[in-house]
C-alpha cells in the first residue's frame, strides 16, 4: 500500500509541480538550448540528434529555414540567408557598414533601424533572432513534453542596453517568456562552479564567434559575485576569419567588390582553415573563382598566428584592465575558465596561459558550458529549487550617464556596479524661465558625448518658469536584474512631476513590436486577443498562488480584517480569471496588487531581519 503524504506545516499541501524551463545560448555562430532534467543539466537535440543549431536563417519563397537547413543556402543565396545576426542586433546602419563593409546583404530602413531586403520582404535583426528562438523553443517543447514556463537567455556581459533590449524583444516576438537575461561568462561560471565546488576568485575568458568577454568572479558558499567585467562587443573568432579573408584577397590578387557568393566562399574557407590549424601545422586553401578556375595556396600556423596576434593582444589588454577594476592580482586568480569555440585556437590558449601564469581550464565543452549554466539558473528561477543556496550577483558592464552642457557626459552609474541599482542625480536649468529640458542618456566610459553610445533621448516638459539654477530636476536611473535601464525625471522644488517621453535611439519601440507580433499571426486580431487573455490568466494564477502561500506563511503580519479583505480579493480574481474578459482580469489584478502592497512590503522587511538573525546564529 502506498504511504499517505503529509505536507510540512506552513507549506502548500499541493505537491510541487515541476515547471519546465530552459537555458538558451543565443550565439553569433551557433545557438543551443539546455534544460535540467532529473537533477542534471544537458543540452537538448533536434530529431536528427544535433544539439548545435547554426545561427543562420534563410528566407525562401514560401518558408523560413533555420539552422543546418538554412546554412545550405548561405553561399548560393547569400542575400536571403542571414548569418551572425547577433553582431548586428541593436546597432546602427553606419556602425554595421563601417565594421563589416563586405556583408552580402541588401540593407534598407533608416540609420537607427537597419533592415535586410529579402525575397520575403524587409526583415530586421530582431526578427532573425526571433526565428532562432522559435526553433529552439519548439525543440524544447518536443523534448520536455510541454510548454515552457520560461527561459534564461544568455548575452555577452558587455552587451549595451540597446543590444540587451533587442534580445528581449526577439524573445517577445518569438512568444518566449524570459525569466532573466544572463551574462554569458556568469553562466559559464555557474556551470563550472557548481561542478567543481571551488571557492575563491576565478576568471572567465569567453571568446565567441563575434564577441569577447572577460569576467572576474568570487565564488563563496553558492554566491557568484561578479567583481568586474570587460571585453569587446565586436571582437571574436569571426574577426580571425576576416583578417584571413583580407589576406587571401590580397594573395589571390582579387579586387573588391566581389560577388556575395565569393565573399561567402572566402569566409567559409577562412573559417575552415582556422579550424584545421588547431591540429595541423599547415593547410591548403582552395577557392573556385568566377572564371571557373581554382586558386590554391598554403597557410602555416605561424603565418596565421601573425595575422591574428593583434586581435589576441587586444583581448589580453581587456583582461589586464578588468583585473585592475576588480582590484585583483593575477596571482589571486585560482582558475581561468575558457568559454567559446574560438578558445580552441592554439595561440589564444598559449597567450592566456602566459598572461594568467597558469594553464586555462578547458575540461568543460566550451561550446556547451554557457547553455548548461543558463539551464541551471532557469531551473532555479522557475521555482523548482526553493531551497537552493545559489545566488548570482552581476554588474553593469558600462557606465551610464547624461549629457550636460558643453557635450560632456556626467556619469550617474559607474561600470561594474552591482545590479539591481537605482541612483539619482540632480540637475538645474541653464536659462531664466526655462520650462523644458532635453535629457540625453548615454552609455560608455569616455568623457565626450560623441564618444559614447546614445541610448535614449527624452524631454522633460512643464517645469515651472524660474530663474536659472533655481529648479531642481532629479533624474533617476534604474538598472534591473536583466541589466536593463529605465530613466525617469521630476522637478523637485515644486513637486511637479513632469511627463517624459522616451525614444530609444536604437532598436524598436513597443508599438513596433506589437505590430510585428500582430503581423506574424494569421488571424491577427483574434490571436492577439487570445495571447493577451492567456498572459493575464497566467499572471492571475501566479498572483493567486503567491498570495495564498504568503497568507499561509506570514498571516501573523496581518490583522483579521486585513486577512478577510485579501481573501475576498483572491476569490474575485479567481472568479474573473475563469472567464475571457481581459479587462476584468486586469482590473482584479490591479485591485489585489494595490490591496496587498503593504503586506508584500512587510513580508520582505521581515525576511530581511530574519536573514541576519539566522546569520547571527550561524556565527555562534
Amino acid at each position, binding site marked *: 500500500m502506498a504511504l499517505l503524504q503529509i505536507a510540512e506545516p506552513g507549506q502548500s499541501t499541493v505537491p510541487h509541480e515541476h515547471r519546465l524551463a530552459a537555458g538558451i545560448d543565443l550565439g553569433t555562430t551557433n545557438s543551443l538550448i539546455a534544460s535540467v532534467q532529473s537533477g542534471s543539466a544537458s543540452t537538448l537535440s533536434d530529431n536528427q540528434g544535433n544539439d548545435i543549431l547554426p545561427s543562420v536563417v534563410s528566407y525562401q519563397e514560401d518558408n523560413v529555414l533555420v539552422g543546418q537547413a538554412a546554412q545550405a543556402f548561405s553561399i548560393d543565396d547569400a542575400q536571403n540567408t542571414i548569418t551572425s545576426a547577433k553582431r548586428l542586433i541593436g546597432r546602427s546602419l553606419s556602425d554595421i557598414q563601417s565594421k563589416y563593409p563586405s556583408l552580402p546583404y541588401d540593407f534598407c530602413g533608416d540609420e537607427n533601424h537597419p533592415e535586410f531586403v529579402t525575397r520575403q520582404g524587409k526583415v530586421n535583426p530582431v526578427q532573425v533572432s526571433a526565428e532562432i528562438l522559435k526553433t529552439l523553443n519548439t525543440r524544447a517543447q518536443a523534448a520536455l513534453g510541454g510548454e515552457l514556463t520560461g527561459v534564461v537567455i544568455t548575452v555577452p556581459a558587455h552587451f549595451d542596453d540597446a543590444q540587451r533590449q533587442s534580445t528581449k524583444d526577439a524573445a517577445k516576438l518569438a512568444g518566449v517568456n524570459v525569466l532573466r537575461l544572463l551574462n554569458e561568462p556568469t553562466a559559464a561560471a555557474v556551470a563550472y562552479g557548481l561542478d567543481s565546488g571551488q571557492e575563491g576568485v576565478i576568471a572567465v575568458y569567453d571568446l565567441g564567434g563575434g564577441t569577447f568577454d572577460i569576467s572576474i568572479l568570487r565564488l563563496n558558499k553558492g554566491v557568484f559575485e561578479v567583481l568586474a567585467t570587460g571585453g569587446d562587443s565586436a571582437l571574436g573568432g569571426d574577426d580571425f576569419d576576416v583578417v584571413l579573408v583580407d589576406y587571401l584577397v590580397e594573395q589571390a590578387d582579387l579586387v573588391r567588390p566581389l560577388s556575395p557568393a565569393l565573399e561567402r566562399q572566402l569566409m567559409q574557407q577562412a573559417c575552415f582553415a582556422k579550424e584545421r590549424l588547431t591540429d595541423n601545422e599547415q593547410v591548403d586553401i582552395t577557392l573556385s573563382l568566377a572564371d571557373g578556375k581554382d586558386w590554391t595556396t598554403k597557410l602555416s600556423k605561424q603565418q596565421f598566428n601573425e595575422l591574428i596576434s593583434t586581435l589576441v593582444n587586444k583581448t589580453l589588454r581587456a583582461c589586464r584592465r578588468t583585473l585592475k577594476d576588480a582590484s585583483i592580482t593575477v596571482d589571486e586568480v585560482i582558475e581561468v575558465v575558457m568559454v567559446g569555440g574560438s578558445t580552441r585556437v592554439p595561440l589564444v590558449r598559449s597567450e592566456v596561459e602566459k598572461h594568467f601564469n597558469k594553464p586555462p581550464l578547458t575540461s568543460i565543452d566550451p561550446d556547451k558550458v554557457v547553455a548548461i549554466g543558463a539551464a541551471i539558473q532557469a531551473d532555479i528561477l522557475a521555482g523548482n529549487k526553493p531551497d537552493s543556496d545559489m545566488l548570482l550577483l552581476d554588474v553593469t558592464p558600462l557606465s551610464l550617464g547624461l549629457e550636460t552642457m558643453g557635450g560632456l557626459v556626467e556619469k550617474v552609474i559607474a561600470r561594474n556596479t552591482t545590479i539591481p541599482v537605482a541612483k539619482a542625480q540632480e540637475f538645474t536649468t541653464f536659462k531664466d524661465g526655462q520650462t523644458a529640458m532635453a535629457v540625453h542618456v548615454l552609455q560608455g566610459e569616455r568623457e565626450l558625448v560623441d564618444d559614447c553610445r546614445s541610448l535614449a533621448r527624452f524631454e522633460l516638459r512643464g517645469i515651472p518658469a524660474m530663474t536659472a539654477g533655481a529648479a531642481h530636476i532629479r533624474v533617476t536611473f534604474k538598472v534591473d536584474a536583466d541589466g536593463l535601464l529605465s530613466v525617469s525625471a521630476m522637478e523637485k522644488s515644486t513637486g511637479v512631476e513632469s511627463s517624459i517621453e522616451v525614444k530609444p535611439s536604437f532598436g524598436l519601440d513597443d508599438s513596433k513590436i506589437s505590430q510585428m507580433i500582430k503581423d506574424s499571426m494569421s488571424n491577427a486580431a483574434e490571436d492577439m486577443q487570445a495571447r493577451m487573455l492567456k498572459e493575464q490568466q497566467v499572471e492571475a494564477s501566479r498572483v493567486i498562488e503567491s498570495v495564498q502561500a504568503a497568507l499561509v506563511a506570514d498571516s501573523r503580519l496581518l490583522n483579521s480584517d486585513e486577512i478577510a479583505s485579501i481573501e475576498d480579493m483572491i476569490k474575485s480574481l479567481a472568479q474573473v480569471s475563469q472567464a475571457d474578459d481581459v479587462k476584468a482580469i486586469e482590473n482584479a489584478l490591479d485591485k489585489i496588487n494595490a490591496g496587498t502592497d503593504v503586506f508584500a512590503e512587510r513580508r*520582505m522587511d521581515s525576511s530581511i531581519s530574519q536573514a541576519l538573525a539566522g546569520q547571527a546564529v550561524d556565527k555562534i
Partner: protein
Amino acid sequence: MNYFQLFNIEATFDIDLQNLSSSYQALQKAVHPDKFAHASEQEQRIAVQKSAHINDAYQTLKNPLQRAEYILIQRGVDMPNEQNTFGDTSFLMRQMELREMLEDVKFASDIDAALFEVQRVLSTEYQQLSSSMQVQISENNSASNDAACDNLRKLKFYQKLNIEVDRLEDSLFEN
C-alpha cells in the same frame, strides 16, 4: 534603519569587511529578484527596490571614503558642496605639484619608474591623510568632525588623481 543597522554591524569607521560582506550576501539571498522570478509582478518590483537599496548600502559602507562621508552626514555634519572653493592654499599648491609630476611621466626616460614613483608618492600622502581622518572620526566631537570633513575633501582630490594615473597607464599601455 541606517546602513549599519541594516547590516547589523557597529557604526564605526573601522568595520570588519568580512563581516559586512557575509551580512550583505545573507540579505541578498533573502531579497534578490532572482528569488522572486516566478512570483507576482508586485513581489518582483518590491524585490528589485529592496535589493537595489541593499546594494547601495553595501557599496557605501565598503568604500572607505563613502563610509566616512556617510558617518559624518549621519552625525549631522554639514558637507560642503564639492564646487565650493577650498581655503587651504598650501594643499592646493601641493595638488598642482602632483599634477605636474603626473604630466611629466610621459616625458621621463624610464616611464615605468616615473609612473611607479608617482603612485608611491600619492599612496603615502593618501595614507597619512586617511589615518588622521580615521582618528578624527573616532574622536567624534564637533571640532574633530569638521576636521575629518576637511580631510575627506582632501582625500577626494587624491582619488581624482588616482583616476588620472589609471587613465595615463591605460594610454601608455595602448601604444
